[in-house]
């Protein structure tokens, strides 16, 4: 499998957006973004996870120094991954107090809002699970790129916890803590080298937080590692891994996936811009 090149990444973490809260210095159960302001009338009914997805795509475009036009159209694939971010809208609908539109309970609606907002109309897939689902989404994106089904692929992952923090607290073997809300979107293009995906299952293993001091990000965990890799200059071999409900998955690039030195230079500049505005 030809490895895709991670051209840009929008990575929004509630933990860093909260005034750089000291890591490991508190025992909060969850870090939440709160509700982002709807960008326009059309999205005023959208759920929090949808609005965060839109923000992640905006952050990705900013990171890549690209306009919306660059991702619009049928040559852009959209892959979405989450472990549980539908839980908030499901709860709202079940308990009946939120006045939520039923369609928003469907996991498919999060990437749908992105597709509508940014005009992304290419192939798509949605994977539900923890980190292995996100790794699977990246793998599927690479397949679509390799087959010529698209020119670029976006891998979107969103996890929110605030609305169901009490429920997650009842399942300590399934999720770690603190729970950290994350919305991330990765832009992939054809790159160099090979991509290897491995997965194995052994029942009884629990999900692990990506790193104890960053908290539990579920499906967004691998993108947190990718974010760190990019911020460190992206030189070391890129390896992403994660576990969920007994499945351990790994995704490995066998060499620097960047297509050229000039592209790498542009990427470095855009990363600096991103850090400058305080995002991650």
């Amino acid at each position, binding site marked *: *499998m030809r490895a895709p090149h991670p051209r840009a990444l929008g990575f929004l973490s509630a933990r860093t957006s909260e005034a750089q809260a000291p890591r490991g210095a508190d025992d909060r159960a969850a870090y939440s973004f709160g509700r982002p302001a709807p960008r326009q009338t059309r999205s005023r009914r959208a759920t929090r996870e949808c609005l965060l997805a839109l923000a992640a795509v905006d952050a990705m475009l900013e990171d890549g120094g690209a306009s919306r036009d660059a991702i619009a159209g*049928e040559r852009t694939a*959209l892959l979405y991954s989450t*472990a*549980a971010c*539908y*839980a908030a809208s*499901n*709860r709202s*609908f*079940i*308990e009946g107090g939120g006045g939520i*539109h*039923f*369609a*928003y*309970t*469907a*996991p*498919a*609606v999060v*990437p*749908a*809002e992105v*597709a*509508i907002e*940014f*005009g*992304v*109309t*290419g*192939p*798509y*897939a*949605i*994977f*539900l*699970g923890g980190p*292995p*689902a996100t790794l*699977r989404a990246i793998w*599927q994106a690479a*397949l679509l790129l390799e*087959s*010529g*089904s698209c020119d670029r692929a976006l891998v979107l992952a969103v996890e929110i916890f605030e609305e169901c923090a009490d*429920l997650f607290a*009842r*399942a300590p073997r*399934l999720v770690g803590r603190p729970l950290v809300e994350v919305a991330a979107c990765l832009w992939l293009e054809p790159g160099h080298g090979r991509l290897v*995906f491995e*997965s*194995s*299952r*052994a*029942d009884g293993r629990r999900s692990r937080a990506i790193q104890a001091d960053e908290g539990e990000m579920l499906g967004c965990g691998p993108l947190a590692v990718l974010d760190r890799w990019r911020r460190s200059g992206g030189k070391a071999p890129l390896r992403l891994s994660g576990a969920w*409900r*007994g*499945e351990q*998955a790994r995704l490995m690039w066998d060499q620097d996936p960047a297509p050229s030195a000039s592209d790498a230079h542009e990427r470095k500049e855009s990363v600096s811009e991103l850090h400058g505005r305080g995002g991650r």
Partner: protein
Amino acid sequence: MTTERRERIAIAAAGLSTPIGHGVEAFWSALLAGTSGISRIERFRVDDLRVGLGGEIKELERIKSLGRVPDSRASRLLLSAADELVAQTDFRPLPLDPSRVAVVVGTALGGVEEGERALGGDRTRRRLRDALYDAPAHDLARWLGATGPAITVSTACASGATALAVGADLLREGEADAVVAGGYDILCRFVMRGFDALRSLTRDFVRPFDRRRTGLLLGEGAALVLLLREKDAGRARLGTLLGYGSASDGAHIAAPDPGGAGLERSVRAALAQADVTPDDLDFVSAHGTGTPLNDKIETAVLRRVIGTRAVPVNSIKPGIGHTMGAAATLEAIMCLLASRHGMIPATLHLEEIDPECDFDHVMGQPRASRPRISLSTSLGFGGCNGALVLEGRA
């Protein structure tokens, strides 16, 4: 679109459970007989809803194979389909390395009913774990003894098509040697309330492509197939998965794009991957929900792709309801059974074709025809469009 042709994947066997029968043979007989599985829902409260009808399975088939059977109805329904599949294929215990057997399951609702229970006062941890949408796929993998990837996809009502496509990719890329793939969904109060609120449910019969159509009814079901690389499959296979295509509408969260551009792209991509042309199509299993908009859009897309050539079209949703995550897999199996038996089931309750939905509809009674190449279309919330191209085996 430059989608390259990919390795063909054999559909070796199938197992299913529906409101019109458990098992492939019962399902097929009921389709040909025009049996309706629509009834008043009895398992949960519906008296406060506009519409209390649906394709409810009154009693889940007892799972004959040994092993722990989960509590949740979603998992039990999925396992009941798996039970039939393994009975046909001697697939339990697994005849090959368990780490080379994968599970890919599509669903629109997952274990949401368990979520309702968890919020309703059941504080057991199991209830919370089962409430996650990927729980039934893990239950299935555990029950099978498969330790390869256990994947859940959720592209709304196109999920059953996406699952087959992802399963095929696992085989093509050498990640697995056998894949149990398909879809499921149950009827529960959550989804009935939701569709009732959307006013999508009809009080009449479901009448796809009929001038008098007024909406859909939901159903529950599970359908699984065993996917193998063509070279690993014997001659006794049901058929072949030739191609798959998907595309987002990017238009509306709950309604299909009136222009049908996304559906058309997915159909053309599936044909390209299958390396067939529209002229090769012998049969179309339409999504055919019976909503005014869906059927009109679907017809327009089929007209644009196929032209004026008479290609038989049907929808099996009137008799079983819209089974959401199971629908596309059930319809794919139906296509292959039509090839095997040389009969195409009729679209129940279609009596007066809407001029805007004019096509070569199979109506009134089954049609004697043995389609070789079939197209199956799916549309879902969020503008999810999926299309499968299948080759039957006579």
